[in-house]
């Protein structure tokens, strides 16, 4: 287990103003007042936390840091710790009614939005998943079951990959005979999904963390949107 270094001013290359600004952005989130009420520093969240068992990770430390508004420590945690969370929300049993898991969700969003190095690193190798969900409407698909992607799942993945087409055809629900998406999705539905990504600023988020991926997604989307008669996809 890698020890988590929480020494003061660990990221001295980042100014305190920047650290304050990032925390202010998290605090301005509409959800903030429903996810942090204070902190007894009791550690009940740690007892329930799966990630705390396998990493030097603690929802208590994260809740303490944000409750104390220690922006230097919060920055270190954003850089080195928040991506270890499993987002299981076992910590929602907090007696103070906090949700450390949701505090982490918000801190992750701020990290992605601001293109922090830690967010870029955390999302390395994740591009194909974002690509899939944004462009096809289903997050995972049968054709992702390839031995090189899941070597630790054993020989059965070979068997699935080898028989994929026939096994998909041997599924009684008519919507499941697909391999590139998990079920049949109408073109119109995918167009609606693209419009949602554009209207809600999700495309800007992607460009902040992975410009190459952003370019590919935009290329595909713009072509399809144009085909569907949407020339201008800028929304307020």
């Amino acid at each position, binding site marked *: 287990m890698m020890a988590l270094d929480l020494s003061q001013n660990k990221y001295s290359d980042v100014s305190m103003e920047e650290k304050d600004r990032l925390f202010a952005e998290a605090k301005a989130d509409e959800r903030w007042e429903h996810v942090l009420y204070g902190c007894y520093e009791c550690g009940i969240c740690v007892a329930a936390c799966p990630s705390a068992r396998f990493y030097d990770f603690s929802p208590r430390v994260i809740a303490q840091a944000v409750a104390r508004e220690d922006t230097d420590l919060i920055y270190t945690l954003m850089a080195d710790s928040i991506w270890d969370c499993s987002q299981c929300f076992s910590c929602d049993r907090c007696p103070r009614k906090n949700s450390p898991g949701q505090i982490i969700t918000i801190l992750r969003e701020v990290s992605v939005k601001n293109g922090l190095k830690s967010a870029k690193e955390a999302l390395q190798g994740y591009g194909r998943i974002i690509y899939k969900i944004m462009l096809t409407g289903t997050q995972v698909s*049968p054709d992702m*079951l390839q031995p090189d992607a899941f070597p630790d799942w054993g020989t059965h993945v070979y068997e699935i990959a080898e028989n994929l087409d026939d096994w998909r055809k041997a599924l009684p*629900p008519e919507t499941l005979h697909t391999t590139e998406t*998990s079920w*049949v999705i109408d073109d119109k539905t995918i167009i609606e999904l693209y419009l949602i990504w554009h209207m809600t600023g999700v495309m800007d988020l992607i460009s902040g963390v992975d410009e190459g991926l952003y370019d590919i997604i935009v290329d595909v989307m713009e072509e399809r949107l144009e085909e569907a008669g949407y020339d201008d996809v800028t929304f307020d």
Partner: protein
Amino acid sequence: MLHLPVLKADERKHSMDTDKGEKVDLTDAIFQLEKEGEWIVQRVPEPYIELDTKYGRKKKIPIEHTWHHKSCGQCGHIPGYSASIFWLNREFGLDYHDPTNQTSCTAWNYYASATSNPEAQAAVAIRNFASAYEVGYFPLIHCGTSFGHYKEVRHALVHQPELRRKVKAIMEKLGKPFVIPEEIVHYSEWVLAMKDRIAERQQLDMSMITATVHPACHYHKLIEDDAIYDSEIYGAQRTAIISGTLKALGINVADYSTWFDCCGFGFRHILVSRDFSRSFSVQRKIGVMIEEANPDVTVTHDTGCVTTLDQSQFAGKAHDKKVGLPVMSDSQMAALAMGAHPYKVLQLHWHNTDNKAFLEKLGIDHEKKWSEFQHEIQKIKDGKNEYMSWEDAK
């Protein structure tokens, strides 16, 4: 690791905390917002069955006219999970709709990568709800994460007028109505509501089976008040989901001390940091279940849980860990009990951990069943059938 003596589902002497806990009953607020013209509330269609939630609120579970909000992980990687849900509906002759204008909830990606935001997440949810409303069917959510996430979305939409305004504007641009379902219903609640009817039609004796249960975190930890509880199951100290269904099938539901723990899925971990998922799943769940309860099968009700608990055992074997426990969904167990084909309907060949001993214990000739499935595959290969139909799956 320290092991405590554990009690079985029906050995707890407690009752439901109907007057304790902070209740999150959104019913009044949802209908009030409808009166104010904010949105349309889609009513639970009749007939429905009422089940108790954690603090005693009655939750309406629709029996039919359901719009099946499928799960990408189930349909993509363990498709017998979804096929079993549909099979059960068909066996009971219930009216349902399997849509092609549904998207994933995209919450898996959201919890894994944070490359989304509350407006996008809420808009994706409402677009799906609107699609159900437009055809007059009520959403039945197959995935535990979609279910938990949609409850969070609904909660946020009730409490955040600005979010409502943004989502309403998006729906207007898409030309879709702004609809919120009266209840967010998970398919396993439907299975539980149907448990007596399933037991009436049971063809397979399952009384020799011992099962452990893993409840999905996003089912009972997110908006916990909305999960189903029953004083007869763990004295209402734990959700009754799955356990209630298995008991109705005559299965011995065995307890273990890490019941509350998550499966290790981790959203991003299962995709890019699987060392964590494997270790947690094998050491904190499967290993503990085997050591304390020695079950024949473990049953869960979510995409990520089946995947992680099942797939992680392969690597556990290489490390001489206690593994080899078949993993199934409650829909598969219910379908099997009612006589569904283990390969044509349950599609057990997509699962990783060997389940032959479990099938043998139930008196199922798996070799014969596999050759029947292979026969269907041959018909597809020979071009005699384009697909295997429901009729062929009988």
